[in-house]
């Protein structure tokens, strides 16, 4: 979608045009969902968060100045919301453990089941599940950069615009993410 269409769509969205909103959702729902799913690794939660992304877009389109592309703005909201969701989930897990120490009943704290991304080819499913498990242990920014690069295929420059950082920082984060994943995968395979 080019700059002109972006501008037209933004104006229409600011006027609460429902057809424009539908067009925005239909154009970018898979992109948003795929990004969120890569970070959250849970299909139902990812759909929920993807909807939250569009709710925020609908409510705060007035504050969008058009400096960046509409897709960049959407990616930014999707990454922020997905990382927030993971933080909340981890906090809930920690409290669950604390409650279980005191013998209080809370939601069961089970180890997360293997996540299978629907887009991964069949012969890579198992390896990808191991990779996602390792990915879940990375720091937020490394995780986001890796997902945007590997799952969405964004170049470093575009990731830098989404994440509000320089392309060099993105390259650095990607390099660290790969190294950390190598270490985590090494532990996994040596324990097998």
């Amino acid at each position, binding site marked *: 979608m080019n700059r002109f269409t972006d501008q037209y769509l933004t104006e229409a969205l600011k006027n609460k045009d429902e057809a424009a909103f539908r067009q925005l959702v*239909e154009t970018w729902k898979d992109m948003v969902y795929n990004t969120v799913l890569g970070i959250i690794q849970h299909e139902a939660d990812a759909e929920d968060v993807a909807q939250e992304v569009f709710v925020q877009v609908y409510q705060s389109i007035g504050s969008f100045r058009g400096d960046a592309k509409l897709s960049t703005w959407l990616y930014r909201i999707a990454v922020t919301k997905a990382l927030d969701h993971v933080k909340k989930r981890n906090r809930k897990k920690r409290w669950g453990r604390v409650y279980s120490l005191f013998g209080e009943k809370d939601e069961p704290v089970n180890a997360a089941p293997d996540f299978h991304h629907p887009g991964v080819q069949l012969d890579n499913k198992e390896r990808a599940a191991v990779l996602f498990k390792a990915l879940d242990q990375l720091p937020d920014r490394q995780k986001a950069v890796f997902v945007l690069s590997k799952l969405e295929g964004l170049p470093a420059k575009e990731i830098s615009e989404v994440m509000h950082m320089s392309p060099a920082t993105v390259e650095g984060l990607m390099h660290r993410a790969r190294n950390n994943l190598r270490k985590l995968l090494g532990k996994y395979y040596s324990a097998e």
Partner: protein
Amino acid sequence: MKTKRHQQEIEAALNSLDGAGRATAGEFFFTRLQARLQQKGSSAWERATGWIARPSIAIIGLCIILLLNSIIVIRQFEKSTSGTDQASLQAFADEYRLQVPTVYDDDRGEQ
């Protein structure tokens, strides 16, 4: 030999997302989104009551009301006790003629 196999596994896992297709959102995504938007767009009153009904807000509000009440009660009690003391002492003294008699009082009696 084992290390080499591990390295190959690690690299294969790292590259396992290469060529992965995009996951697609479920059907009726937009319909569900519309329902959510309508839910979010509920009236200001509904949102306000929802906010007040949150346990943390309700408990804090209750504590503030109780604190203000107790401050008012304590102040009222202090004011009324100090006022009553003076008035009742005066009444008691008048009742039992506990004032110290002076020479002028006698003179007044003779007139």
